[in-house]
Each structure stands twice: as structure tokens, then as C-alpha cells.
């Protein structure tokens, strides 16, 4: 089992979701986050005072999958989120120790899907 965390541009969320559904990945958690990468965010100006390096809005996806769904999920995210510009985001893949469905108390691979 793996946990896939992806940071993407907010305007790519719909496209990523569409690609995930196509790959039969239906269980995702989405949150709004702030962050910046190498380009150091945006510059904001308040009454003439410049504020450099302000954080940009991003979307964070969390998707828990069984081994055979890892590659299809990654491909779907890449397809939906890639624009070729700076700030497209990152995908992290972590080992997942356990997964428990609260309703039925099922554990492991069956609980994920």
C-alpha cells in the first residue's frame, strides 16, 4: 500500500480529477494549502510596501492506493496537472503501514478500494 501526496495548481484540480476517474481512482482527499517553490512566490504591495516571497495557493491531494494502482494514479495526476510551466507542483509517494475502514473495521488492501 502506498500513500500518494500531490501538490498541484488550483486551476488543474478539475482536470486531475477527471483523469483519476478515468483510471478508476475514486477515493481522494483534497485540501487548500499555501506554499512556494524555487520562484519564491508572488510579490504583493500594500500602500507602497513591497512584500516579497508571499505564499501561493496550491491544492494538496492525498490518495491511498494498492500497489497495482500506483502507476496509473501517478500517470493520471501528471496528465491532468502538467502545463510545462514553473509551479506545476510535486508528487510524493510514501509507504503506507496500515489502512482501516472505520465503518466496517476492515483492514489492509480491502479497506483502500
Amino acid at each position, binding site marked *: 500500500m502506498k500513500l500518494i501526496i500531490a501538490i498541484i495548481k488550483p486551476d488543474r484540480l478539475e482536470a486531475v480529477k477527471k483523469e483519476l476517474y478515468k483510471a478508476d481512482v475514486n477515493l481522494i482527499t483534497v485540501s487548500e494549502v499555501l506554499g512556494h517553490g524555487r520562484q519564491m512566490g508572488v510579490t*504583493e*504591495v*500594500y*500602500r*507602497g*510596501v*513591497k*512584500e516579497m516571497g*508571499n505564499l501561493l495557493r496550491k491544492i494538496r491531494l492525498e490518495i491511498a492506493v494498492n500497489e497495482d494502482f500506483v502507476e496509473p494514479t501517478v500517470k493520471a495526476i501528471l496528465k491532468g496537472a502538467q502545463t510545462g510551466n514553473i509551479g506545476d507542483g510535486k508528487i510524493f509517494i510514501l509507504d503506507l503501514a496500515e489502512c482501516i475502514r472505520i465503518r466496517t473495521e476492515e483492514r489492509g488492501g480491502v479497506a483502500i478500494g
Partner: protein
Amino acid sequence: MKRWMVLVLLLLGMALVGVAIAEEAKTPLGSATETQAAPAAQGAQVTEAPLKVDTGDTAWLLISTALVMLMTPGLAFFYGGMVGRKNVLGILMQCFILLCAISVQWVLYGYSLSFAPGKGFWGSLEWAGLKGVGFTPYKDYAATIPHQLFMMFQAMFAIITPALMIGAFAERMKFSAFMVFMVLWSTFVYDPVAHWVWGVGGWLKDLGALDFAGGTVVHINAGIAALMAAIFIGKRKGAENKAILPHNLPFTLLGTALLWFGWFGFNAGSSLGANELAVNAFVVTNTAAGAAGLAWAILDWFFHEKPTVLGTATGAVAGLVAITPAAGFVGAMSAIVIGVFVSIFSYIAVTVVKPKFGYDDALDVFGVHCIGGIWGALATGLFASKAINPAGADGLFFGNPKLLLIQAIAVGVTLVYSFVVSLILYKIVDFIMKARVPEKEENLGLDLTQHHENAYTMIE
């Protein structure tokens, strides 16, 4: 212990009100009528008929008074949007409690200190508890509206003036110290200065200084006291190297719009009648606000690549400030010039002067209200014309350099007096109860530490 002291003070206050009520009962509402009717009864040389209330003027002033009242909550949102989300209730509460507190202070003794006739430092206590302030017009202030209406109209000015200062010490003043400071400030700074400029026997009024709707009394007065408070309370934590970002600019723009709307009462109401002068004030108020907002947007565009919402809102407020003393004395074309230049001066004050001297005037009360007020008062000395208002005077550009000098004296006196006395009051309050919140409370925010509340729930 502290709680008991507050209770005792409140009880004492109630006792005073009780005495006032007893007095009121002795002389029922028409008291002013009686005093006026008395000489008439003696017959002889009195030729003046008792003043008659004009319904049109009264209707306009009732509305104007309500309009000016709306400015204080408007100001609360103007400022509230600019602070961090942990301090927004603190700002709203400070503005709102002034609306409550000065409403009471004004009828108890504030109006009397400011407007009762007298040649001294204050008016007098003759009108304390509204004794003798009835429904018959008082000729020297407003001959066509009930005296109590004039009193109420002025109350709204007395409320918003201390509220303007809140922006300077935003996000770090203790609420209890704030309350004590503000009541003292209203009594020892606002009331005397209002008397000097507007009151019968006021020495600046007798000197010939023109202040149509309160550029000197309201904006310079509050603006310089705000600078004092910002300097002596010290910088906000986290404001040393960077700006603290506004948490809700839509609030700020909403507040600006409410201020603009209320300002029609502030300026056009200051004609004290539904007449041509009110229309002139209305026109120049709107024109100056527009010109100044536009000018600030262009300055932002030119120097910082984009026109900002906060900048445009700030410019509009600066324009309203600058036209305030001039509203009844200048025409629309002068208003455009006044509006454009106030944005330039305030822009320099906010973006160049403030960083250079390093005081943390959090929401630029000094840069907008004091600088705008000074420019407005001096601009009145430049652009005033008897063609607009025969009761006024001609300015420098209309052949009378003396007015500019008188305006400068009024500005200088107000600056010095307000700064010095505000400083003394601040130091007394700071010595007794510490004006600033402890660092830990400042980090947590004033909403939680001063009011035990939060503006926004994060999780339901």
C-alpha cells in the same frame, strides 16, 4: 479590587445622571423657549421674534446626523479589514464602544465643554446634562433647527474623532487603557479644540480661521495624536521588518464606501440647512474623493506596477479628509486640485516618510488624516472664495493672503496642543495601567485576549 473600583465609578456616574434628571424635571423641555420668551415679556427694546424651526433644514440635519453616525462603523470596517485576522474584533470593538461611550459623555458634559459660550479654555459646564439645551434653535450655531439636533449632529463628530486614532495603535493596545485614554482625550483635547474653532467665544473662530466641517478639529487633531500614540506605544511584534498583511480587503473597501456615503452628512450637513451651500459641499465632497482615489491609483500604477484596491480606497479617504475644511468655501474645480494633491502628499507620507522615520503608525492615521487635514486647511486658505460662500472669506488665489496665514496658525496651534496634551494623557494612562498588552497576549491577538472571542471559526 479593580472590578469594585469600576462599579463605584459607575454608581457615581449614575448619581450624577440622577441629579441631572432632577434638574431636567424642574425645567421641562421648552427651557430654551422660556429664556428667550423672558426678555420678550419684558417688552421694551426687544425686536427679535422667537426663532422658528425650518422643517426642511431639520429633516436634512436629522438625516445628516444619522449619516455621520454610520461613518464610525464604516471606519471600523475600513480599519478592521487592514489588520490581521486575530485582531479584527479588537478594532471593531474599539470603534463601537466609542460610539457608546462618547454618546453618553457628550450629553453629560462634552457638548457643554465644547459649545457652551465662553472665552476660556473650554466653553463651560452651563449646558451639562443638556440643561437649557432645548428644541428652540440656538441662533449663534444654527438658527433654523432645534438646538438638541445641532447637539446630536456634533455628537457624531465627537465620536468619530477619537475613533480615527484607533488605526495608529492597532493590534497592541490594552482595552482598559484604551477606554480611559479615550475618555480623557475627548475631554481634554477634543472638547477644548472644538470650542476654540467652533464655539461661541472660541479664540480661533474669532481670529477668522475657516474650518467648514472639521479638518482641524477632527482630522489634524486626531491625526497628530495618533502619531504620538504610534511612537510611544512602540512597534507591533512582527512589524519590524515587514508589513503585517491585511486580512480582508473587501471589508476595507466596504468601509471606505460607508465612509464616503456618511461623509455627505459630515460635509453637506455642516451647512446646517437644506440649502445651496449644502449642495456645494455635496458636489465638492464627491469630486475631491473621486479625484484623490483616482490619483492614488495612478501613483500606485506608476511606482508599483499595478493599481491597488487598498491604495485607491486610501486615496478616496484622503480626498474626503482634505475637502472637509474647504467643503463650504471652494468650488468643484478647486476640489479636483485639492483631491489630486492630497493623494500625492499622503502617498509621500505613507511610502517615504513613514519607513524613513520607522514609526509604526499601523494603518496610516497620521499619513492620511493629519497630512490630509493640514493640506485641506491650507488649501482652504488658497482656494476659498466669497463667490461660493459670502459668509466665508477669500483665499490667496482670490486676492487675500491673510487667510492662509490664519489657517496656518490654526493648524500649528492644533498640532502642538494636541500632540503635547495627548502625550501627557498617554503617559499618565501608561504609568497607571500600562497601555500596551503583554507580548504573549499580542502574539495571541486582541480578539482572544481582550474580548475572549474569535472573529472566524476555523472548524465547525
